[in-house]
């Protein structure tokens, strides 16, 4: 058994195409993800944005606006004070999100498209207008001394009347999901390793298979030793990938490192079993079997959120059973549960369903492979 195990290990490590797809390709993809996504979330935080204000006579005479807008300048936005033509050019060259123009007493905003910063600009200008409205309304009421009231209102407007208490979980970075799906994909690609190993002991798949079939060694010993060897190779690949993600790209896996490792072990096992199942269930060429694994893996990875996390969420909420049967999603979801949730229920659910998937694959394969005999081939 050990002899067979040792040579399976050696053969697998020397198959270049296999090593590329299971070891190098996920790492290369991880690098690409990092380049594309590293800035995505920072750009979604609110920033000081560029606007222009047309400093015509109407604006200069509008003291309330002038004071408030000057005060907010460089805090909320950076304003350029220009003529209307210059403002129009700035807008066209996309150097500002919008500009403010006073037509007599009425402020108007000019933008090129709808968007969050345009909405915030509108919000700010409306707030000034609404403050004016508050003052006017109360000034009209009888029995109040306007100058006292005005002072009181201005202090109130600038004071904090609201305390907001944040109850969100602290880990909110959604790009980690992309890297988790990458691990899931690599674990499933690991199936090609299992497939390679099992194929070499099947008589209908090549000369080596024929020779191993006529040896006195029991088939179960052959298959099990090869399965263990391919599991170790696949695990090596996943370990390298995860070390790379953790130390080079600094992907956050949460604080339960032991559980992360457990999930990696179980996930890789699921991938290897998928490979063994495909090797034993399909009677087609080696390349076609590899094709099946790659196609299935890509499809499952996309459902698990590799090409955009929204798809995972949409399936999780609308068709939960689809993702519960999807081993790629179970791996991704397990990492997500460890990263985002404080409780472990969801994580254990994922682990158990991965184990069920593994057992199912192995039972079907063993039924298919055992007692396979040829009179001649």
């Amino acid at each position: 058994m050990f002899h067979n195990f040792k040579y399976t290990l050696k053969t697998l490590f020397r198959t270049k195409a296999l090593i590329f797809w299971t070891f190098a390709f996920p790492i290369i993809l991880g690098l690409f993800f990092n380049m594309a996504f590293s800035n995505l979330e920072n750009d979604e935080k609110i920033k000081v944005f560029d606007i222009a204000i047309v400093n015509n006579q109407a604006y200069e005479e509008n003291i309330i606006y002038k004071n408030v807008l000057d005060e907010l300048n460089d805090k909320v936005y950076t304003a350029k004070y220009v003529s209307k033509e210059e403002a129009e050019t700035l807008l066209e060259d996309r150097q500002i999100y919008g500009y403010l123009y006073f037509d007599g007493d009425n402020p108007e905003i000019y933008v090129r498209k709808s968007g969050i910063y345009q909405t915030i600009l509108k919000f700010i200008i409306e707030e000034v207008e609404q403050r004016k409205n508050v003052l006017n309304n109360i000034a009209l009421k009888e029995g109040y001394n306007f100058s006292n009231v005005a002072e009181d209102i201005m202090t109130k407007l600038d004071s904090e009347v609201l305390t907001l208490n944040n109850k969100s979980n602290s880990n909110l970075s959604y790009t980690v999901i992309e890297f988790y799906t990458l691990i899931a994909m690599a674990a499933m690609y690991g199936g090609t390793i299992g497939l390679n190993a099992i194929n070499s002991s099947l008589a209908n798949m090549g000369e080596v298979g024929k020779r191993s079939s006529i040896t006195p060694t029991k088939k179960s010993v052959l298959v099990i030793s090869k399965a263990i060897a391919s599991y170790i190779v696949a695990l090596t690949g996943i370990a390298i990938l995860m070390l790379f993600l953790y130390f080079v790209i600094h992907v956050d896996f949460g604080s339960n490192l032991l559980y992360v490792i457990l999930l990696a072990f179980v996930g890789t096992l699921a991938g290897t079993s998928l490979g063994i199942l495909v090797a034993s269930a399909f009677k087609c060429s080696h390349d076609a079997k590899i094709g099946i694994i790659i196609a299935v893996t890509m499809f499952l990875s996309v459902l698990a959120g590799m090409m955009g996390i929204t798809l995972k969420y949409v399936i999780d909420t609308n068709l939960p059973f689809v993702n519960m049967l999807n081993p790629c999603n179970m791996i991704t979801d397990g990492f997500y549960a460890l990263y985002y949730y404080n409780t472990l229920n969801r994580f254990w659910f994922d682990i158990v369903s991965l184990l069920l998937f593994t057992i199912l694959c192995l039972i079907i394969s063993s039924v298919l492979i055992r007692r396979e005999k040829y009179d001649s081939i």
Partner: protein
Amino acid sequence: MIVFKTVLKVINRLKGMLILYTVILVAISLMNQFNSKGTVITYQETKPNIVIYNEDDNILAKEFINYLDKHTNIKKISKDKIDDALFYRDISYVLYIDSNFSSDILAGNKVKLDYKSTEDYNSSYTEMLIDKYVKVASIYKDYYSDLELTKNIEDTVSKEIKVNLSTKLDVDSLSYATAYFNYLNYSFLAGSLYVISMVLSSMKEKNVYKRTIISSYDYKRHNKDVLLANSIVLFGLYLIYMLFGYILFKDLMFTNNGILYIINSFIYVICTLSIGFLIGTITQNKSAISGIINVVALGTSFLCGCFVPIEYMPESVVNLSKILPTHYFVSTNELIKSLDKIDFNSILPIITNSLIIIVFTIVFIILTNIINKKKQKIA
């Protein structure tokens, strides 16, 4: 003609993968379109998706929710699903209004509200809306009461000012079209690398190659036939993708912007053809080819902003991508997206980018010839 036909026969066997690349392209574009709100040429406020859990029965709380409803999309999501919804950005803010909300405002106490948020600009904007309402209410409560109070708050916070949209471009449709044409980089590169390197590796298989060299057929003509057959297939692919462009974006394709997209893609498809020949010449190892295709097509797409818009990418990556022709293809598409009128100044950067792509093409052709010559000598 024999060579030409043979190449077409080889390519015919590869059509499965070409169809797959096309299906992926169309599926992704359709998914983008699916989220589209249709043609928008008036200004529309951005409305964050939020969830509110209210425990206060007072009219003030109800009016507060009505106000938020005007400026946000209030969704109904059960409490056990709320954390997932936040993480996957289905919503950006969850507000918990407890039973003391109104009484705190009316008593002049500091109002305390619990929330969960994604901490992005949508959630910041939601906080501004909440803050405004509470402030106005805290001031008016000293001067008005009951219905008069809510009515006055409503009057004040609903004061709007005019927003003018100063472009007649259909910005949304143009964004989707730009995403489609940017994504073409992947389809073109994967398609051309796959077709050309598979054809070349069949033609350069040891025995076939030896037979070709000793045949009486002029080797240069042989090469021309191979080039012609590959080019025709790639242009066929180009035409199909343009046709899909027309099906997806209809009349937009006949505007100035649409025509510029078509021209830009044409210049770029020639460049991908030259990249295909270069890589096909470097390696004829069939099992290496699929690896190279994925690394080159995916790599350039990620690096140059085909999948994630270039404005969201770190500057260092954008600078690095300038050594690749894809960068110029994508940045031309981005320029076309916001091209309002065509004059010398606006078209100049587009011409510069096109010239750079052409220079890349020439360099790739020269490199291919040099490598070819060296390899022939060894043979």
